[in-house]
């Protein structure tokens, strides 16, 4: 079947950000230097936004074209050529245009463009401005490859590509080693998941190539989605073991990228990156790629009830742990990071109960409100001289009205204010599907695993309402302006690079590798010392510039209830769009209206408790003195020791193993080699000559030996009679 070439333009969705990346990498710095920081940075920023915006328009165009096709024909593949092609394995460069990929494209490019715009303002004082947008454009390109690629290997290219960009952006401020260490942690933990992903792919190749007749596989494109999706009706329950393991292995990949328990430990540390990065990569797009993968592979995963049960339970545990840790955090971005972990848990609950589309629904609404909350927190941080500790905030609604109003919308969406905000709709869809799961893997208390996860989800909803309200009250609420009474003990250390300068220069520099004294002098004269001041008691926060608040307002509009009701209301638009068939009204054990009631109860109890505790004034235990903290929140603040056990434990264990191997190598493996050498030398002790230790002597000796040996064998060869 040939589909009109109109879908070939999908390649430009990937190429545009890639061209933007190349421009920033090769010419961005020169552009900023030529035009000067004041005009050059916005210009470079504008050039970085443009390709993302264009890709969005292209994506919208393709989506509308796709929507005009009949439901069963809404999938097209555009092939560019072979990538890896040998006997037994064909992996072409191919992109897939279908409802799932285009939905992701619209989120990535739409929200991506807004965040790029915001970053022009947020990063305006940054010396390495073009480098930031280099990474950001590359990230968008990789993310688009991830969702558009028509085979698992291309998805994997994007998968690791976004991982690298995330690594580079977390460690963007590399002069502080803590940031670089957080970056390393993110990449390495993600790689653990990636091993699962790779093994899952290997198993699929095995399953399809070994059963190609049974499954009627044509060609050798084992890992292409059209092959994978085409065989899914024939898989049925023929290969339960293989299907279980493939599902679990791919899920392990998803756990790494989407920060599921216990592989979530990298995400809170990832907040070391600039805030636009946290919004784009670590909230709206990259961390949802695990949900995308499960959606993409859903026809296979759904065939393994055991795997589904595990996914739902892991999702529930993640939601619960993330929310519980958020109770005790004092850093505004860390609260949002754990809330992201928790919300990602919801998406996996949805996948685990078979409501994959509901997982995507929550991806969409979450992308808006969490990007909004992060960018809002970035605006607060920007206004508060890069102080991120909420214990120095308070009463900011007076100074940052737009930020406050838009963040309040984000808050209302995440806590699930009924009907009026988008988060309510997607959370209802997820939890409704979970508690009404009719058959699935056995859980406990007479419930299926999915139902159990659903009820945990409602409890988490109440917890979310509490900790998000706490965050808002600590930041914007009360009349305390806490930065006024406490001078922060944290001062950002300026980099005293000149201290390191040596007085004298004793290395002779014939090749011209070093700057001379005069050149160093000139460079330090030219260096612009950019203004940087710390938060002090006289600080008056000011509302952020328009490039920053305009994206906030647009995202706030996207977080309103009409988005949720349009996508997931009575018309079930999103479900029909993603699944390709009209939704069947499911009637489970829990009635729809009852669920809304439970949601409202969760919302009211969480918000009420928070207002009771934090509404008037901040409780004493939330101060700077750890000893006054209430033990439960302190325990939560320290993440219940999970990160300490997992990360530090692994690092320590790895250190021991490494040291053992190192010693083994030095004293045993190499010891034997040197021992043989010493032995040979002492055996030849009668002859004084060889002990000189010169290569020449040994070489000569060995040559003599070899020649004698060869001569003997040759002699036998020549004289020995053929049998």
């Amino acid at each position: 079947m040939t589909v009109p070439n109109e879908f070939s333009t999908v390649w430009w969705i990937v190429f545009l950000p890639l061209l933007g990346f190349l421009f920033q990498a090769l010419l961005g710095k020169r552009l900023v230097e030529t035009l000067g920081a004041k005009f050059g940075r916005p210009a470079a920023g504008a050039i970085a936004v443009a390709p993302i915006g264009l890709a969005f328009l292209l994506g919208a165009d393709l989506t509308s074209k796709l929507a005009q096709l009949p439901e069963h024909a809404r999938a097209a593949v555009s092939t560019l050529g072979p990538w890896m092609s040998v006997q037994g394995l064909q992996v072409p460069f191919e992109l897939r245009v279908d409802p799932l990929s285009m939905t992701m494209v619209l989120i990535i490019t739409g929200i991506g463009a807004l965040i790029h715009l915001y970053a022009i303002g947020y990063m305006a004082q940054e010396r390495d401005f073009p480098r930031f947008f280099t990474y950001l454009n590359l990230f968008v390109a990789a993310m688009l490859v991830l969702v558009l690629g028509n085979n698992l290997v291309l998805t994997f290219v994007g998968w690791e590509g976004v991982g690298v960009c995330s690594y580079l952006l977390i460690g963007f401020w590399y002069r502080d080693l803590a940031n670089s260490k957080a970056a390393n942690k993110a990449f390495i933990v993600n790689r653990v998941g990636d091993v699962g992903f790779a093994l899952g792919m290997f198993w699929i190749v095995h399953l399809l190539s070994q059963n190609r007749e049974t499954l009627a596989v044509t060609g050798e494109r084992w890992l292409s989605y059209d092959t994978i999706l085409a065989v899914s009706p024939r898989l049925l329950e023929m290969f339960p073991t293989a299907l279980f393991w493939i599902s679990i292995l791919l899920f392990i990949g998803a756990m790494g990228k989407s920060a599921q328990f216990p592989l979530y430990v990298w995400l809170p540390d990832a907040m070391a990156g600039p805030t636009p990065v946290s919004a784009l990569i670590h909230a709206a797009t990259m961390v949802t790629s695990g949900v995308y993968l499960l959606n993409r592979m859903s026809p296979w995963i759904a065939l393994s009830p055991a795997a589904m049960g595990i996914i739902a339970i892991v999702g529930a545990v993640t939601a619960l742990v993330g929310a519980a840790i958020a109770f005790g955090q004092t850093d505004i971005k860390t609260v949002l990071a754990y809330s992201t972990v928790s919300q990602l848990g919801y998406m996996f609950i949805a996948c685990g109960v078979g409501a994959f589309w509901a997982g995507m629904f929550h991806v969409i609404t979450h992308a808006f409100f969490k990007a909004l909350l992060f960018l809002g927190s970035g605006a607060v941080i920007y206004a508060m001289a890069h102080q991120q500790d909420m214990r120095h905030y308070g009463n900011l609604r007076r100074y940052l009205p737009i930020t406050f109003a838009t963040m309040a919308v984000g808050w209302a969406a995440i806590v699930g204010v009924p009907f009026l905000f988008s988060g309510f709709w997607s959370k209802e869809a997820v939890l409704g599907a979970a508690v009404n799961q009719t058959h699935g893997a056995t859980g406990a208390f007479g419930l299926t695993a999915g139902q159990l996860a659903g009820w945990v989800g409602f409890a988490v909803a109440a917890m979310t309402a509490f900790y998000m309200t706490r965050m808002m009250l600590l930041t914007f609420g009360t009349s305390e302006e806490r930065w006024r009474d406490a001078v922060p003990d944290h001062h950002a250390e300026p980099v005293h690079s000149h201290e390191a300068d040596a007085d004298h220069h004793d290395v002779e520099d014939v090749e011209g590798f070093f700057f001379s004294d005069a050149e160093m002098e000139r460079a330090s004269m030219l260096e612009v010392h950019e203004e940087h001041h710390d938060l002090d008691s006289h600080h008056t926060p000011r509302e952020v510039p328009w490039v920053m608040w305009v994206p906030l307002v647009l995202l706030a509009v996207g977080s309103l209830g009409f988005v949720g009701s349009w996508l997931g209301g009575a018309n079930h638009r999103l479900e029909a769009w993603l699944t390709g068939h009209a939704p069947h009204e499911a009637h489970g054990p829990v009635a729809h209206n009852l669920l809304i009631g439970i949601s409202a109860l969760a919302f009211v109890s969480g918000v009420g408790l928070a207002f009771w505790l934090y509404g008037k004034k901040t409780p004493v235990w939330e101060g700077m003195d750890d000893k006054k903290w209430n033990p439960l929140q302190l325990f939560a603040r320290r993440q219940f020791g999970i990160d300490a056990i997992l990360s530090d434990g692994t690092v320590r264990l790895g250190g021991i193993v490494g040291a053992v191997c190192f010693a083994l190598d030095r004293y045993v493996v190499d010891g034997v080699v040197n021992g043989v050498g010493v032995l040979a030398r002492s055996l030849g002790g009668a002859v004084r000559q060889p002990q000189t230790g010169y290569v020449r002597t040994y070489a000569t000796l060995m040559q003599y030996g070899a020649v004698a040996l060869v001569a003997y064998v040759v002699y036998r060869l020549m004289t020995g009679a053929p049998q």
Partner: protein
Amino acid sequence: MSGFGILTAQIAIPLAGAFALMLVPNQYTKAIQWIAMLFSIASFAASLAILTRFSGGTYQMQMTEAVSWIEPLGIHYRLGIDGISLWLVVLTTFLNIIAVWFSFYVKSRVKTFFVMVMVLLAAMLGVFLSLDLILFYAFFEASLIPMAVMIWVWGGSKRNYAALKFFVYTFGASIFMLLGILTVAALHRNLTGNLTFDLVSIQKSVASGALWAQAPHLQALLFWSFAVAFMVKCPVFPFHTWLPDAHTEAPTAGSVILAGVLLKMGTYGFLRICLPLFPEATVQAALPMTVLAVIGILYGAAVAAMQPDLKRLVAYSSVAHMGFVVLGIFSLNHIGIVGGAYQQLSHGVSTGALFLLIGLLYERIHTRLFADMGGLKAKMPVFAALYLVLMLSSVGLPGLNGFIGEFMATLGAFQSGIEGAYGLNLLLPILAACGVVLAAVYLLWMFLKVFYGPVTNPLLHRLKDLKTHEVVMVGLLLIAAVWGGLYPQTFLAPMDRSLAAARLMATSAPGERPSWADSGVQIAEDGTLFGPSEGPLPEFVIESSSPSTVGVGR
């Protein structure tokens, strides 16, 4: 077969270069440098000429040459090239240009240095092009001498120890190979009454099953006599300890060539000699070899993570990366073998590049210890960017060359493992896959310690970024790394048939094995053999590269 041809020219050009250099008086340093460069470029041009003549549609030896040499002993000068050796030849001449270019920094005994580089180049090319076992052995050993001299004369503080260890260790192991060669030739003579060291003839009698039918018990012994030589060269755990010492002490050009090419002589030996000549023994050895490969992957990574010295770290990473080559080859699965062969090329480019980058840094600050570094990114952003990309290619990032080989090698090992073929099991590829996590651990920490954080060493404070010609030098390798990652088809397509044949030579039953001597016999897309009697050969078709759009139903 005919007399001398283009392959001889390929080997003769660097030798001619060495002679030309000897004629130039010592003090004309510039002339010496540019003559070496000229001959390096000529050598690369020759390999490109070979490339254009090469056909990927056959597994047979191409451009073969045979000249009588030591007639009474049946030793001939025989050269030939196929898909297994093709890219190694190109890689060798390519890396040689880079190594020579960098060696413009060499200040002492310039002439001798470049003579050694040229002799080394000729010897390495000879290894990849020889079809006579004695000739192969001669080149194999000949490559040792210039390399050992390079370490010994231009090396670091412990150069005597390193050069001696390198020489004695690898030479000692090769003795076993020589004995193996002689015995195999003797067995072949027993069978045919004809004393020859011709790889093609001997393999023909192996393919029919006749050779080993007369002495089945000897096959495993002889396999290991070759395998030991190759395992030391690769190096495979536990025969690797000469490598870190040799690398650390060698001058930069030596390290680049050592990592880029010399190690591949070991894995090439497996593909060229072990698989075709010792089929049953290869199958039996699949499990132990794979076990050693996996140990090498994990152990090399663990030890690499503990190194305080940049070069030692990259040297141990070579142990891990070459483990993937051995893993792929001994998976005896076509995808795995292709992956292993591809990983040879990738490792040559990315590890060669890392050694080059370390050399560029060492020329400036005369240290390789992490303790003396930190914060370099602020001082040398271009250097940092180049280093980053090539480090990521070593990490195996998809889109760069390192991924392709590791992915296919592990995929192949997984297929053999899950099927329980050749005595392999699933645990081995799973452990190997975990090795990629460790690769990220030590390489990312290396990058962090060198480039991130504040500048603490006063020496670094005045550093300028790379010079333009240095950027070009590294840039060439970077282009190769990106090309190899984005369009591996360039390299995979010509290798495919020869590697399929090598696999079938080892895994098929006697009598069904392909033989280089059966001219006209081909391997079909599905891996079956068909002879010239079955009609004209089909064109070797790889997937159409023209852009097309196909739709699929859901």
